[in-house]
């Protein structure tokens, strides 16, 4: 998705590139919003540098996009981190791509503890596993649920999971 994007240079970009020269970073921008794509194996190292070196002290959001039906996409999942430097007010979007069967990323909870529920939600909806998370399980859906509903191959009407949920009676609860 870099069709009309132009590469821009910013202070944070040159800083992060000079600190982590070994990591392949693809910097793009769309309407002045700066994004960087990094390989999934370097995520934790890069995010730690974002916090410690570049001063991005808040994780605003963490989400995932299933690129299954995206025309021209070569990867399956795109995990997106939205970073913010609270004092400077600058934002950065960090993206990484994942493909089956290697759907594992290191957990960012040790960098920002606010990643806790966001990672659980991404697992719940997309099935991305975050290794090293302190309390890793589904967040919104019940534990009996087996599918990952925000994947593009999951139908909007669902697969009738609710009919198969165990019934809890008053005496059991």
């Amino acid at each position, binding site marked *: 998705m870099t*069709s*009309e994007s132009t590469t821009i240079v910013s202070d944070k970009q040159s800083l992060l590139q000079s600190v982590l020269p070994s990591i392949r970073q693809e910097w793009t921008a*769309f309407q002045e919003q700066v994004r960087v794509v990094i390989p999934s194996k370097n995520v934790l190292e890069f995010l730690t540098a974002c916090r410690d070196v570049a001063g991005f002290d808040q994780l605003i959001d963490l989400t995932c996009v299933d690129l299954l039906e995206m025309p021209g996409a070569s990867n399956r999942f795109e995990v997106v981190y939205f970073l913010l430097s609270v004092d400077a007010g600058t934002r950065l979007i960090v993206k990484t791509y994942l493909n089956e069967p290697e759907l594992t990323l290191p957990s960012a909870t040790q960098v920002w503890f606010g990643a806790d529920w966001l990672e659980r939600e991404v697992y719940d909806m997309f099935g991305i596993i975050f290794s090293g998370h302190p309390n890793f399980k589904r967040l919104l859906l*019940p534990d009996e649920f087996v599918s990952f*509903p925000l994947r593009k191959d999951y139908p909007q009407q669902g697969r009738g999971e609710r009919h198969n949920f165990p019934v809890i009676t008053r005496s059991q609860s």
Partner: protein
Amino acid sequence: MPLELLDAPGLQENQKEGLWTLNFGPQHPATHTTLRLVLQLDGEIVIDAEPDIGFLHSGFEKLGESLDFNQYVTIVDRMNYISPLANEIAWHHSVEALMGIELTPRCIYIRTIFAELMRIHDHLLCTGTCVLDLGGATAFMYAFNEREYIYEICERASGQRFHTSYTRVGGLLYDVTDDWIAMVRKFCKNFPKAYRDFAGLVMKNRIFIERTQGVGVLCKEDAIAGGATGPVARASGVTRDLRIDEPYLAYDDLDFDICCAKGGDCYSRFQVRMMEMEQSLKIIEQAIENLPSGPIYNEAYGKTGVPDKTEVYRSIEGLIHHFENIMPNRQMDVPVESFYAATESPNGELGYYIVSDGNFKAYRARTRPPSLLHFALFPRMIRNCMLSDVVAVLGSINIIAAELDR
């Protein structure tokens, strides 16, 4: 989730002796909607809390992938239903930022007035029910009286009291009328008195202060690292407000202050919300006096706008225009891109991340719900507080389960 808590970090086996577990919710008046807490207590002191959410999960983000940019507005106003229009404004703010659509001055000002009315609307509920949960029913009634009048203002503009679905890509459903302006002016005139009554009942009430001061403290470092935004972060000393730091709508032209507190406790969050209502009123007063005239749709983007309903129902050209604009193959030009844009909603930073594949629907419409990140901080706030403080902390962070679970 099993009733027993997972082992809390740092809790030794011998420390767990004598603790008891209490299930709070999902149906409890103080949860306002449905959320569940499993509390681990030592006598009356909360040692740990584990929230269990998802009771209101309705797949809104999945629906966002099958509805077009105008249709999805009917879903987003069901997220934070305490301030529906704030969600609509945030959603279309993101869509317009993605497509690079500029709004007309009149549309910008009407949206600003509504955004601030919604802030008052939301804060009145939050502060009112916070007091109600702590046993003060009178102040709650004063707050809800004013909320009723804001519903009437919404009804006059959009025809709907609650789920207004008022914004459209590049404009608004209807233009506002002169009696709507008169209603907003009347609100500005009457609100200070109701606010004084409400604040007088609560702000110096000794029982209320003792129930909230020093309770549920969130320090500044935790607020930042945990992703807190909005009044919750500002009550902990973070001086960030998107209306000032990343100005959108008409906030650049208007004069107002950021409201902050240092305590980080329930009382500070309450204070910040009370002060923000005063500032919102100041913004509305300025905006309604400077409301520009002119169209609500930008002429340059007339192709994308939904035409005026009187034109649609009374002329064949208008009807054709309407059909042309809503046909899937004739809709607006969307770049194949992804964009994140956020607004300062009453509860905090409400952002939408839209990924587009050039279609008239979003490929992925991610909501960044402030409630989710605030509720994740709840166990930190409640540790070592009393059992009766649970409702005080819950009330002060204003959890809206529909937004939490989406």
